């Protein structure tokens, strides 16, 4: 299911126009992005937890050339599905 299909179905489900659904999806995604930027944890019951994690710096080696790179630390968004959801797809 790609983004277009998702919005169409969502519009049908909520009984709103596709454009409204599109703006609302954008607003919601923006909100979630904003929360994650602030290191907040989003706990959505029945779905899972959206949070950010920090990855340490590490050394990586290019196996072809043997070059060593120091990869800087970074913060990555992570999703942890709820147990209910996990069991559903197991």
């Amino acid at each position: 299911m790609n983004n277009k299909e998702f919005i169409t179905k969502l519009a049908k489900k909520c009984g709103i126009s596709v454009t409204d659904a599109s703006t609302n999806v954008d607003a919601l995604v923006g909100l979630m992005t904003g929360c994650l930027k602030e290191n907040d944890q989003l706990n959505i019951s029945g779905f899972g937890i959206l949070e950010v994690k920090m990855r340490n710096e590490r050394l990586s080696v290019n196996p072809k050339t043997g070059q060593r790179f120091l990869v800087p630390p970074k913060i990555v968004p992570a999703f942890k599905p709820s147990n209910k959801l996990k069991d559903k797809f197991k």
Partner: protein
Amino acid sequence: MDAKLNQSDLISLLAKGSNISVAKAELFTKSFFDLIIEGLEQDGIVKINGLGTFKVMDVASRGSVNVNTGEKIEIKGHKKLTFIPADALKDDVNQPFAMFEPVEVDETYQPDSVNEPESEDSAEQVELSDAIVEIVESPTEVPAEMNGTEAVESPAEDAEQPVTSEEPVAEEVAAEVETNDEEVVPTTEENNGQPVVETESEPVAVQERPAEPVIVRVPQKKTQHEQKASSAKKKKSKWNIAVSVILGFAVGFILVNRMSRNSVADDATQCVDTLQVIAATANEPEVIVDDIHATDTILETPAAVLPAETDIVVETVDDNAVADEPAVEEAYTFVLVDELAAINLKNITVADTTCYVADGNLAEHTVTSDETLTRIARQYYGDKRLWPYIVKYNNMDRPNDLCRGMKLVIPRLVPRK
């Protein structure tokens, strides 16, 4: 920052941000997440622009070992829900570290943090906000982790250094205090020998010192105390008041005790205790003052010590308020020591008298003038402290009223077994 938001928080935020009713926002948000699950069930993949891709992935079966029994087990292949964040979300979240790029390093480089396992999510999570703050404050520094490790190491080093350096300092202080004691005592005696420098309190202290060997330490301390007056007047006056209050308290306590004591032995031990307490309290301020004073005297040559001491003594004479108080303290101390001696004597009397029993008549004694019970006791027993046996044996109601011509029966005393 670091807050935990749930679905209702998200709904209220959406309602506020998009100007729609809370009910609509709730319906929308719930159907949003429900549809993701629905889509995953249907297609196994849901793509949302700006957020990322939710995907059901296959996990192949793999062999493993039961950690408890060591048996080989097979973990069956299953499906797993994964989330691949969109680039926009990744970049937004990683903004604090955005300026970093992979740097090529030579082979000798070995960062400490490489050894740490990368999967320590909880620990990383805790560090996250701090690390961000660090990076934001110092964007030019590439290895953020190394900063952390250095910061951790340096306090440990700091903590070690004082420990090693403390011991010699303490020894020095102790040595200084000792040398100070030795120096001060002779100089005070010399000062007393010189008629030029006369204080009212000091000769008293030195004269009484040999008479009462028990209290040698106390007046010595007091004279030291006086000499310290110039170096730490403010401290001293405070301590003087405190110590004199304590002494007064102790004297009152002992007097009350003496009035209402049941056994003399108890009283004596209490008295000794209180004296020790007083000595301890009197010592405490000196230790502090000694340190200050010791450094002064140590710096000076031995020849220069004597004039310095005389100066100090003269100053104490001028300063009446400071000089008077130690004298009062000494008086208190001497009274205390006298009392202690008296109590000790009586203590022995009571203890000794219980060691004998009367066994028959030894003699009959007619009291002559200028005779007392103690003299009679000394005459017959060789020990004046045994007079209460005579009183008891004769059933005397008022032992103080001994009149001439009174006939007393002196008991024979046999040591109690």
